[in-house]
């Protein structure tokens, strides 16, 4: 089973899902830790990202985004929905109550991961005033380390468009960030 088939199968094949989960779990947990400070929220969002990927997998063709960029695009939408919605209401009907799966040791590991992402979380928060598309590109590039090509693929826009958004955002944030946004990588590493 190649990579595309493997991702496309995660919605129907538990073994394919397990392989995908093991490959991307750490990346998803770090992605979430760059955005939230509560270990319970981090646990729930990690579960929601994989659930969203499972349900989106049947449309995965692999020609638009590599698995990591595809998953980051999904993760970004999940976290954005979480922030816009009322978490208390969502919790009432959550599909997997992930926070209920936490024990002390697991919680400590998540807290340590969240602590390690403090700087990235500060950059993430500083992007709040940007227009949505600029913010999306900068998030994936400056906070999550995707290349511009990967970020564009994750967002369904052209690389040129992503580049324009990134540089506009950099100009816009020039006076509000202690450190300027880094030069983006243009190609997939």
């Amino acid at each position, binding site marked *: 089973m190649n990579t595309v088939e493997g991702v496309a199968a995660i919605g129907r094949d*538990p073994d394919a899902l397990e392989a995908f*989960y093991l490959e991307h779990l750490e990346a998803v947990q770090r992605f979430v830790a760059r955005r939230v400070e509560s270990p319970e929220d981090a646990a729930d969002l990690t*579960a929601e990202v*994989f659930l969203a990927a499972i349900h989106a997998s049947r449309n995965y063709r692999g020609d638009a985004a590599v698995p990591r960029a595809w998953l980051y695009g999904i993760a970004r939408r999940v976290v954005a929905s979480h922030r816009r919605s009322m978490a208390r209401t969502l919790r009432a009907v959550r*599909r997997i109550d992930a926070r209920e799966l936490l024990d002390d040791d697991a*919680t400590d590991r998540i807290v340590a991961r969240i602590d390690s992402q403090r700087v990235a979380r500060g950059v993430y928060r500083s992007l709040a005033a940007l227009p949505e*598309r600029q913010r999306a590109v900068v998030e994936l590039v400056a906070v999550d380390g995707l290349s511009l090509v990967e970020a564009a693929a994750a967002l369904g*826009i052209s690389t040129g468009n992503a580049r324009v958004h990134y540089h506009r955002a950099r100009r816009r944030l020039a006076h509000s960030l202690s450190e300027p946004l880094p030069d983006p990588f243009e190609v997939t590493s």
Partner: protein
Amino acid sequence: MNAPLDSFETALLTRLREHVDQQPAVRPRLSRPRLLLGAAATVAAAVAMVVVVPGLGTTTAYSVQEGNSGTITVEVRRLEDAKGLEAELAKYGVTADVTYVPDHQMWCAPGRYTPVDRKLSGMQVEMGAQLLKVTLPPGTVRDGETFVMAVFGEVIPPSTEPSQDGVRDDAGFSGLTEFDVTAGPVQPCKVVPNPHD
């Protein structure tokens, strides 16, 4: 990932495997991105989610905007005036067939149109502060094609009593949506019970 899983990661993997195992073996041929927006408490928890709609009833039913890149964004806040939304989309060069069914336990009988045989990159539905947000990148709906969208759902009034876990639900929207692009005719929606409900 090389590190061994901890108890949480192992338990989550088990739950996710169970979730995949519970998926229907053969899915019906639905439109491309199909999103379950929510379901009432009586619906299977596997698809349940409630979307809160602040200010419900105080805003226009829909809006259509076109960004600098040519991406068209549709926001639907209330399931009203489907024909008006079709007319508004036509102003942006998009032929559309919009159906609203105020019952999340129903949907349109399949086969009323033939989806185009190509990947519709970037076309997506989001949920959030607005009831429904559809993004149509440039070229998604080509000349002679029709954007088909059907939304099945209803507004849930705020709960007056806390549920079992002590959480009180605010007003929200419960339902699902189906959307795709077709190059052929679109038959009227024949409303039938949702077999997954």
